[in-house]
């Protein structure tokens, strides 16, 4: 009988974290920011078919970066959990916090027990009736939950993008200016992004039951012009 080599828990966790972090940083980043009329989610994503941002429930959206098949699996599980909860209890009883906790459990479980961690970072956003009630839960590959606000950055170069956004961001911005700030922060000083490079959706504060709304290329172009 052969004994496996001993690897200390510290080393194992560090290797896994390095592996996940490295692969997540290779993908394109994503920004979410609250503004006067809702929450804007903006991702650098040239594909208009494979999406990083999605509707979960009436006032809840999902965004993911990293490995597509993995965050898409989480997205679908989130929709299922929310719809089942709304069906069993009531639509008002579905909230981002419990969903974020669910995600944290799953990500933490996979990080420690599966052969490899998920190479994803996800965001659960919930729009409230006033900006103070907006919620941005940022979840890391190991199940860490961060309750962020008024904006959140996912993916690679997080610090640089967050710094650029912090310089521009003003509380109470409108849709157009928050979109411009998010785009400029994602692009950085050397390049610029136009409507074709972006995937953008908003959770509208005053929208009827379903707050999630995608901004199509035409709407984006006119907002960025």
């Amino acid at each position, binding site marked *: 009988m052969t004994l496996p080599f001993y690897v200390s828990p510290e080393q194992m966790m560090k290797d896994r974290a390095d592996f996940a972090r490295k692969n997540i940083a290779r993908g394109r980043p994503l920004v979410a920011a609250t503004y006067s009329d809702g929450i804007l989610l903006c991702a650098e994503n040239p594909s208009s078919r494979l*999406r990083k941002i*999605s*509707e*979960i429930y009436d006032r809840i959206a999902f965004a993911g970066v990293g490995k597509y098949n993995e965050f898409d*699996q*989480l997205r*679908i*599980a989130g*929709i*299922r*959990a929310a*719809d*089942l*909860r*709304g*069906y*069993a209890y009531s639509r008002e009883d579905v909230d981002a916090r419990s969903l974020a906790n*669910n995600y944290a*459990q*799953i990500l933490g479980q996979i990080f420690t027990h599966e052969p490899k961690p998920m190479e994803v970072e996800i965001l659960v956003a919930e729009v409230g009736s006033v900006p103070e009630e907006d919620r941005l839960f940022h979840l890391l590959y190991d199940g860490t939950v961060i309750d962020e606000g008024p904006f959140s950055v996912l993916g690679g170069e997080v610090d640089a993008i967050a710094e650029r956004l912090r310089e521009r961001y003003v509380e109470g911005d409108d849709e157009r200016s928050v979109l411009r700030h998010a785009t400029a922060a994602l692009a950085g000083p050397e390049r610029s992004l136009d409507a074709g490079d972006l995937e953008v959706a908003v959770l509208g504060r005053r929208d009827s039951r379903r707050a999630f709304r995608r901004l199509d290329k035409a709407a984006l172009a006119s907002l960025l012009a």
Partner: protein
Amino acid sequence: MTFPLYRPGDDPGPDFAELLRRIGATPVDPGQPVPEVTHGTTVVALRYADGVIMAGDRRATSGNLISHRTMEKVFPADRHSGVAIAGAAGPAVEMVQLFQLQLEHYEKIEGVELSLEGKANQLSLMVRNNLPAAMQGLMVVPLFAGYDLRRRVGRLFQYDITGGRYEESDFAATGSGRLHAGTVVKLGYRDGIERGEALDLAISALFQAADEDSATGGPDLVRGIYPMMATITAEGFDRIEEDEVAERFRRLVDRLSTPESTTSIGTAPTMDGRFGS
């Protein structure tokens, strides 16, 4: 409730009903005849120039008693379709709720809406799954109507208790007053009928059904309760304001109660009248 994360080979896909079965929530089969339950009655749907109109009375009955005066039987299924129900109220409302959820669930998971045909088939499956309960007296017979964004027309479907799905070209009615309501629409219907005329026709159909069928409720002028009506067009499902429905009913009643009216609604026959002596 566990977090519904499935492995690829085990995934239930965008089907909410299948998901419910996985977690152990299955449709009820009562196993033996169910005693008297609340029933919803008459609903009609007809096509008009811009789409489809759906209308339903507000009465629910248990045997010979009225159990609700304000029941709603016409519901939006999603943005561009609606469903109207007749039959056992409990299972019917539950079916509508599941159907609405199913359409939204599919749209969110797949990122695109189902086609109108696909939605009609989904409802067909649900009605079929209800067959064991229907055999015990819990019948649910819906109408489904919507605006087909691909073909740019309004379309409507009726069902039987086995889940049989029949697309109708002009109009459909279901529930205990369906014969009378259907006949009224049939006589007044023509191709490309305009909104106002179509609404009046649906109102007249419900009025006549209520006049002949005790389980169908007419306009309740005392409490101000009127049938519920909605249009479904390219702009989506739109519930018609109660004021407009009330106004149209008032006009119908005025017309029917004039001495020249040829309907049998006006005055009661006297012994020396039509029946001879």
